[in-house]
């Protein structure tokens, strides 16, 4: 594919179409666009923001060149034979960067394991949080948990109204819920990853970007440039948190208090097969992953 690079390479930056989900997690993308990192790295990026990541993944290679994905979804798609390559990571959760805590008012619930038999709200029925809760409960109690889809912003209300026993929240929706008498428990995804790796790992990849292998073959520079841009974005956030938060506030139209105080995830643009291994274990255990993809070829290797 070096000939095709020559095509576009001479005539300015490469046009790529990217789709991603909105929110705190994708801040580096916003920053990279805002600060011109994409352009500086030779990419002319058209961004599409939207909720249905699965639909975006389905349109990969047709309507989009690069899309955001969450590890369980990426593994499932790959296992189903969708040709894809992970070209970058995005954000991570760890003890210092709690992303998906369990919220509850129920005094009997002390940890995720106590959710057995309870009704638990999750942002989407197939996402990371759903898989994690189900896995933790299954591993620790052998029982099941009833999951219902609740928009994250309505979780606190649903708990208060007694409609659900607990919920798995996400940044920034658990900011300030303590004032309403809701307890914020541990991050259930970290817990699941710990269980899945026998406590070897206590941090998890939350988001990544993928492209089709043929696209990466044709434009080998894209993966590198994309990763570099995101890393620059992450670095900028680390160095200029205030400004980054201001940009986020501007972009997502957040109230000042939320933008200033909500915790930020840990942004890391690189990733490896090891990041996906816990999710393979989780997926296989709870039955959401039927065919295990080849992790060796899943991650883009720079040639």
């Amino acid at each position, binding site marked *: 594919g070096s000939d095709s690079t020559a095509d576009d390479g001479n005539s300015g930056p490469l046009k790529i179409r990217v789709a991603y989900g909105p929110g705190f997690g994708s801040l580096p993308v916003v920053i990279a666009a805002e600060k011109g990192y994409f352009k500086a790295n030779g990419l002319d990026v058209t961004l599409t923001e939207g909720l249905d990541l*699965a*639909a975006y*993944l*389905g349109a990969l290679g047709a309507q989009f060149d690069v899309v955001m994905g969450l590890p369980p*979804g990426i593994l*499932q*798609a790959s296992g*189903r034979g*969708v040709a894809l390559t992970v070209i970058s990571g995005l954000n991570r959760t760890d003890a210092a960067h709690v992303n998906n805590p369990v919220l509850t008012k129920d005094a009997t619930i002390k940890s995720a394991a106590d959710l057995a038999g309870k*009704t638990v709200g999750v942002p*989407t*029925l*197939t996402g990371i949080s759903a898989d994690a809760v189900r896995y933790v409960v299954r591993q620790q109690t052998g029982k099941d948990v*009833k*999951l*219902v*889809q*609740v*928009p994250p912003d*309505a979780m606190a*209300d*649903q708990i208060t*109204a*007694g*409609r*659900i026993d607990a919920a798995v929240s996400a940044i920034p929706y658990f900011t300030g819920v303590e004032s309403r008498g809701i307890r914020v428990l541990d991050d259930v995804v970290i817990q699941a990853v710990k269980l899945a790796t026998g406590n070897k790992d206590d941090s998890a990849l939350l988001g990544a970007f993928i492209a089709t292998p043929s696209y990466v073959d044709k434009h080998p520079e894209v993966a590198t440039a994309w990763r570099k841009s995101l890393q620059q974005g992450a670095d900028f956030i680390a160095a200029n948190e205030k400004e980054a938060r201001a940009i986020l506030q501007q972009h997502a139209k957040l109230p000042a208090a939320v933008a200033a105080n909500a915790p930020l995830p840990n942004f890391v643009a690189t990733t490896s097969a090891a990041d996906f291994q816990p999710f393979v274990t989780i997926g296989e255990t709870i039955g*959401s992953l039927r065919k295990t993809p080849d992790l060796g070829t899943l991650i883009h290797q720079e040639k």
Partner: protein
Amino acid sequence: MTTAVPRRQSRVRGAFVFGLLPLAVLLGCWQFFVPADSRAFPPPSTWPGALAELSAEGSLIPAVRTTLVTFLLALAVATVLGTALGMLIGSSRRLERPLTPVMDFFRTLPPPAMVPVLALLLGTNTSMAVTVVVLASLWPILLNTASERRNVPPVRMEMARSLGLRWSERVFKVLLPSLAPGIMLGVRVAVSIALIVTLLVDILGTGEGIGRELMLGQQSFKPATVWALLLVIGVFGYLLNGAVAAAENRLMRKWGRRR
């Protein structure tokens, strides 16, 4: 309109089967012209397998049951409520004018936006699901009934009053049968809306039922499952509408309205 009665009957039955011709043609073209490894449009021959897989997991039957219960309950409530309200609104300008803006407003609230609110107020249970579905599928029945009500010849109601029929008799013996064609039309439209919204509530609200399987299929990249489920839903809609259409046909024949 003369000797058509026996033919009419067979026409109805014929329509029930032959009416699937366009669908069959579409599926045939799909099977033969879309590449077998298409990611978004897997050929129909792969669908039964996907369905069998789902059924083997034991999730198909309970899902169908959940969806059916919500759907049928909601459709029944919507029919009764829509008919009653439509009758009121259609018979009185004094009621119609003040209610129209509110109704048009609520009609437009997208069900996905209603689900969280009603989940808050009612909980994520069947009654919430039924409420959402009723709120979405009520309108065709209500509007069609109201429109039909305005078209009932005044002589007919005067006749009923003149014969000394009681209020309940006037409603059940004269008014309701007069409105039946409109109600039927409304139900036919409502059936599909109710089914679609039931699936939506499966996803957003109760997290059970065919809607959930559909979304799981979609999010875990099993397009064959998705299309197979759509086929199941479509067939269900087709059977249900066939039943409504048969009832409607019988009715219209009695009315002497069918050509």
